[in-house]
């Protein structure tokens, strides 16, 4: 069993001879990996996501509200099928529970699809890519001194005649493609970012927007359907027995009073869900994201020449493109195995240890390395990261009148660098308001659209770098074996210059 590249032989010919004997892997033998079970990529994923079923299911970290959504839908539909359907199928037609069942099935299917799929997360840059970008930026800026925090980096492109600014993401170390945005809750850049929806427990982006839209649309139909037939049931029963008698009549009383309460709940949920569907229908027909609409990126108020470069011109094409267009694949390959010769992705700017280890892999000269590490130390000092535990954050940030559920949402309130004028618009528009009238949740939702600052998670003053770099340490241990061998090889190369 040859030890692979770890022994760091100084002569290249000896090294190449060793790797000739290894079976299939050209660069390093995976012997070390075979001793411990090979890891899948989701296990070392740098974003703040939860994975289930061995990487098949991907959700945001906070899933409490998603379970609430599930419970609400199941309980409402359950009550409807249990109490109203028997009476209605007798009195009117058995098609009612059938259609209700189909709608329910559709709602659950699209909800689970939205919640469990990858919204279009962009993988973080490999160390080589990040280094290459840094080099290009330094050339463009004309200076390479590391004595100050570099200014926000932007690139301008012209798309269909409209100038669009691409911002550099310090966490993911990439220039974000147009329409992409960094979600601070999930700590990922997401393509065609719409918003982070706590109700589905995931971001809504390019890959799951159509599922999200079908979910809210079918849920609107379901709630209207249930509401209408509950009212019908109440009316029919009261016609049968007389309105007041219906209240007094004990065997019928339970379903009747339940139905009354039920319809009140339904009434509020109908208007909020229908409102949200209407809003998203408008967004789809104009090919905008919630993010763009809130910021007024393409509104005429910014200037007469301002128009949406992504729109196809007519409503029908926009709708078809959004809903029936091709579904792009997941870019993060959650279930793939980590290859020993693949460089690990660059962690967030606070993870100095991880970056330090991967730096030696890239073929930069020593001086550049010093400059880069200095830059990152300064960046890290200037941009403390969001807490990984929400409980710590909610303690440390005193916020007026937020409920504990909206704790993580509330943390963003402080951190939002978006202009204040954009915030109030959400209340009426998105109607991310509730199925049950938890009005406090309103304010929580306003701030869930992520900011566009170049240091996305970094605006919170209370983040503790120590906690996060500890997390990075844990993560880096997993990849430390391959990193170690790669860094040894890198050092061998450097020393042979």
């Amino acid at each position: 069993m040859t030890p692979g590249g770890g022994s760091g032989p100084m002569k290249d010919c000896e090294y190449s001879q060793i790797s000739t004997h290894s079976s299939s892997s050209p660069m390093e033998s995976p012997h070390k990996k075979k001793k411990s079970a090979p890891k899948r990529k989701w296990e070392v994923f740098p974003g703040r996501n939860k994975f289930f079923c061995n990487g098949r299911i991907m959700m945001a970290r906070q899933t409490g509200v998603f379970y609430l959504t599930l419970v609400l839908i199941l309980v409402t539909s359950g009550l409807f099928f249990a109490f109203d359907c028997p009476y209605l199928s007798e009195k009117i037609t058995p098609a009612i529970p059938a259609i209700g069942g189909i709608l329910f099935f559709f709602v659950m299917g699209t909800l689970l699809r939205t919640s469990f799929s990858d919204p279009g997360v962009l993988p973080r840059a490999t160390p080589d890519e990040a280094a290459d970008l840094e080099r290009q930026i330094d050339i463009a800026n004309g200076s390479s001194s590391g004595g100050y925090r570099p200014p926000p980096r932007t690139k301008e492109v012209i798309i269909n005649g409209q100038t669009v600014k691409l911002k550099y993401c310090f966490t993911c170390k990439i220039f974000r493609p147009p329409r992409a945005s960094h979600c601070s809750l999930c700590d990922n850049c997401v393509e065609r970012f719409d918003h982070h929806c706590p109700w589905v427990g995931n971001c809504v982006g390019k890959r799951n927007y159509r599922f999200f839209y079908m979910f809210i649309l079918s849920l609107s139909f379901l709630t209207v359907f249930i509401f209408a037939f509950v009212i019908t049931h109440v009316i029919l029963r009261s016609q049968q027995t007389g309105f007041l008698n219906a209240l007094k009549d004990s065997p019928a009383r339970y379903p009747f009073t339940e139905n009354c309460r039920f319809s009140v709940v339904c009434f509020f949920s109908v208007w909020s869900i229908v409102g949200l569907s209407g809003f998203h229908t408008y967004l789809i027909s104009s090919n905008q994201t919630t993010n763009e609409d809130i910021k007024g990126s393409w509104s005429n108020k910014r200037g007469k020449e301002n128009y949406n470069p992504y729109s196809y011109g007519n409503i029908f094409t926009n709708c078809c493109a959004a809903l029936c267009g091709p579904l792009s694949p997941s870019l993060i390959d959650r279930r793939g195995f980590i290859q020993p010769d693949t460089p690990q992705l660059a962690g967030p700017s606070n993870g100095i240890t991880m970056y330090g280890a991967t730096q030696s892999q890239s073929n930069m000269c020593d001086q550049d390395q010093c400059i880069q590490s200095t830059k990152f130390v300064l960046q890290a000092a200037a941009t403390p990261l969001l807490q990984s535990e929400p409980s710590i954050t909610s303690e440390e940030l005193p916020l007026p009148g937020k409920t504990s559920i909206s704790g993580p949402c509330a943390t963003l309130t402080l951190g939002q660098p978006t202009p204040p004028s954009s915030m109030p618009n959400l209340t009426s528009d998105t109607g991310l308001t509730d199925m049950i009238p938890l009005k406090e949740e309103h304010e929580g939702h306003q701030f869930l659209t992520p900011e566009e600052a170049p240091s996305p998670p970094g605006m919170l003053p209370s983040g503790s770098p120590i906690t996060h770099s500890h997390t990075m340490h844990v993560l880096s241990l997993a990849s430390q074996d391959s990193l170690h061998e790669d860094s040894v090889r890198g050092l061998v190369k450097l020393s042979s210059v």
Partner: protein
Amino acid sequence: CCPQVHSLQELRRSASLATKVFVQRDYSDGTTCQFQTKFPPELDSRIERQLFEETVKTLNSFYAEAEKIGGSSYLEGCLACATAYFIFLCMETHYEKVLKKISKYIQEQNEKIYAPRGLLLTDPLERGMRVIEISIYEDRCSSGSSSSGSSSSSSGGGGGGVGGR
């Protein structure tokens, strides 16, 4: 006196990585996946401009085909919607089929054109569809000093890597 690298395996075995060149995305058409056809200067001595541009243009056309919005994609979308998207559990999407074609094409290009010149293309899918990564390898010889000439010219932009052997 340095042996020419003739296959991918030989390339990996006998050559070491000198530097990597990244071909960035071209966003002038919107969010569709297209790569810049601008010829990177580091490849000047390694490969003919035409061959490289041909590769990138073919890749661009593959991606355009994958993302094409037309009759068949609408049909697929509507069918999927009608089944509450459960059909994606058993069916491969059009995009995935094209991606497989792309992967085959890249492998073929590597074997025929790039590996013999000491280059290696990485599938953009592995890099988040952001870049086409081209790895430049240097021949490693026990006796060769003639490779030092080529290595210094092509790794000039990339910073110190492997010294000429």
